[in-house]
C-alpha cells in the first residue's frame, strides 16, 4: 500500500533545528491537515514529502520504499500561487502532464494521441467545474478557478499522494467553501492520500480525517534555534470534535457532496455527516 512513514526524521539548517524527531505514519487514503504557527516547520515537512528538501536524519518511506529525493509523478502538488503555467491555456495546463508522460523527448503530443489526452483533460475539467473555460489563459481566471485548474492539472497523472500547500488560503470565504466541497469529493473518489498545510483551523476540521499540529515546545531564547518542532497534537478523528463556529458567510446553495457513500464511513461536511440533504 501507499502509507507514508516518517522514521525519526530531523531537519536542520546549520545550527537551526526545524523539525526534531518526527515519527509518524500516515495511512493510505487519509486526509491529513498540518496546522501550527508560522515558522513551525509545516512547510518544511511538506517540502520533505515533496522531495524538494531532504531530511537531515531519518527516513521517509512511501509504500515501504524510501522516498525519491526529487519531486516525481507519484506525488502531486498544489501551491497557494504559481501552480499553473501562465503560458498555457486551461486545457494545455491539464494535458501537459500526459504530454510529459507520453512524449518523452519533447513533451508535446500531436494528432490522435493529443486528442485522447484532451478528452481525458476535458473530463477532469468538467469534474472541477471548469467546462467552457478550456481555451482561456490562467490570467483570465479568478483565484478560485486557478486553484481548481491546479487540482485538475495535478490529478491527471493519478498521483498516490496529493500535497496541498495552503491551497485555498488566498480565496475569499464563499469561493473557499465551494472548493472545499470539490476537495472532499476528489479525496473521496480517487485513490489519494492528501496532506494539506493550512493556517485555517476550521478548514482543517472541515476537510481532514486527521489533524497534526506542530509546535516548538521549549522556549529558552538563547537556545531557541537548537530546538526543532515536534508534533504537539495528533487528532485522529475530528468527526468526534464538536463543530467549530462557522464563519459569517453561510451560503445555502453549496452542494453537499456526497449524499451517501457506499461502503465507507460518512464523509464529514460543514453541515454534519454527509446526510441526506434533499
Amino acid at each position, binding site marked *: 500500500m501507499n502509507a507514508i512513514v516518517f522514521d525519526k526524521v530531523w531537519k536542520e539548517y546549520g545550527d537551526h533545528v526545524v523539525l526534531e524527531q518526527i515519527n509518524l505514519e500516515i495511512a493510505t487514503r487519509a486526509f491529513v491537515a498540518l496546522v501550527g504557527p508560522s515558522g513551525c516547520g509545516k512547510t518544511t515537512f511538506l517540502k520533505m514529502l*515533496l522531495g524538494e528538501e531532504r531530511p537531515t536524519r531519518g527516513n521517509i518511506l512511501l509504500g515501504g520504499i524510501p522516498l525519491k529525493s526529487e519531486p516525481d509523478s507519484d506525488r502531486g502538488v498544489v501551491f497557494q500561487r504559481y*501552480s499553473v503555467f501562465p503560458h498555457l491555456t486551461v486545457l494545455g495546463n491539464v494535458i*501537459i502532464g500526459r*504530454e*510529459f508522460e507520453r512524449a518523452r523527448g519533447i513533451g508535446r503530443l500531436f494528432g490522435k494521441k493529443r486528442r485522447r489526452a484532451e478528452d481525458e483533460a476535458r473530463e477532469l475539467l468538467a469534474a472541477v467545474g471548469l467546462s467552457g473555460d478550456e481555451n482561456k489563459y490562467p490570467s483570465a481566471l479568478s483565484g478560485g478557478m486557478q486553484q481548481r485548474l491546479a487540482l485538475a492539472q*495535478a490529478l491527471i497523472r493519478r498521483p498516490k499522494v496529493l500535497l496541498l500547500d495552503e491551497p485555498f488560503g488566498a480565496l475569499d470565504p464563499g469561493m473557499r467553501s465551494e472548493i472545499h466541497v470539490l476537495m472532499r469529493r476528489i479525496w473521496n473518489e480517487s485513490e489519494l492520500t492528501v496532506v494539506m498545510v493550512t493556517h485555517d483551523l476550521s478548514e482543517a476540521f472541515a476537510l481532514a480525517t486527521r489533524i497534526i499540529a506542530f509546535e516548538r515546545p521549549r522556549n529558552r531564547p538563547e537556545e531557541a534555534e537548537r530546538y526543532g518542532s515536534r508534533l504537539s497534537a495528533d487528532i485522529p478523528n475530528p468527526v468526534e470534535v464538536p463543530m467549530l463556529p462557522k464563519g459569517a458567510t453561510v451560503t445555502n446553495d453549496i452542494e453537499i457532496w456526497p449524499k451517501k457513500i457506499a461502503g465507507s464511513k460518512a464523509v464529514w461536511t460543514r453541515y454534519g455527516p454527509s446526510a441526506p440533504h434533499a
Partner: protein
Amino acid sequence: MRAINHRPDKTWRVALAFLPFAFLCLAYIVGSGIRLAENPNDKLLPGFSTMSEAIHVYAAEPDPRSGNYLLWSDTAASLTRLISGLAISTAIALLAGTAIGLLPIAGATFAPVISVLSMVPPLALLPILFIVMGLGEASKITLIVIGTSLKLIRDIALRVGDIPREQLIKAQTLGASTMQIALRVVLPQILPRLIDAVRLEIGPAWLFLIAAEAIAADSGLGYRIFLVRRYLSMDVILPYVAWITLLAFLMDLTLRVLQRKAFPWFAEARAA
C-alpha cells in the same frame, strides 16, 4: 485638480507625442534659415531642399563608379550585418542563458566568467577582431555578437531564475524531465522576455556596427557617413542618421508587435 490626475485622452496623447518632433523640426528650420541667410553656401545646417536633392542622388540615381543605388546598397549591407549579428547573438543567448539559469552546474561554471567577460568593452576588441578575422564581414558580425550576446545571456539567465520555483516543482510532479521542463515550461516563458531583451540591444548593435563600418568597410550606412564627412556633406549625413534611426525604430516596433501577436498570454500574465 492635481497634476498626477490629468490624463490626456487619445487625441491629445497623439498630439502631445507629435509636439516635441514638430519642435525639433522647427528649431532646425529656424537655425538653418539663419545660417543660410548669412552664408548661402553654409554646409553645417543645410536646408530640407538641399538634403532631399542629395538623397535623391543617393537613392534614385546609380553611382557612376559602381552602378549601385548607394542608399539601398548601403542599407542592405548594414542590415545584413546587423541582423546576422543579432540573430547569432540571440541564439547563443537563448541556449546559454537557459542552461545557466536552469542547470545549477552550468550556472556555477559559466555565470562568473560571463559576468567578468561582459565587462570587457567590445570596441576595445575591434582591433583584435580585424587582426584575427580580417576586414571582411566576419569581423563586423563578430563584434556585434560579442557586444550584445553576453548581456543577453545574463539577462536570459536572470529571467529563467525569475520563473517561480513552484512551476518547476509542479512540472517535476507531473513527471517532466529536465529537457521537457526546458522545452515546455522555461523556453515558452522566456521567448517573450527574450524579445524585450533583444529590443534593448538594438541600440548597442547599431553602435558596434557603425563603429566597425567607420573603421574598415566598403559599403554600409556607417561607412557612408564617415566617408562623406571628409567633404562636410551634412546634406547626406543628416538624412542617413534619420534613416538609421527610422530603421532601428521599425525593428523595435516589429519585435513589439511580434511579442504581442505570438505571446497573447504575456501582457496579462505580466500585469497580474
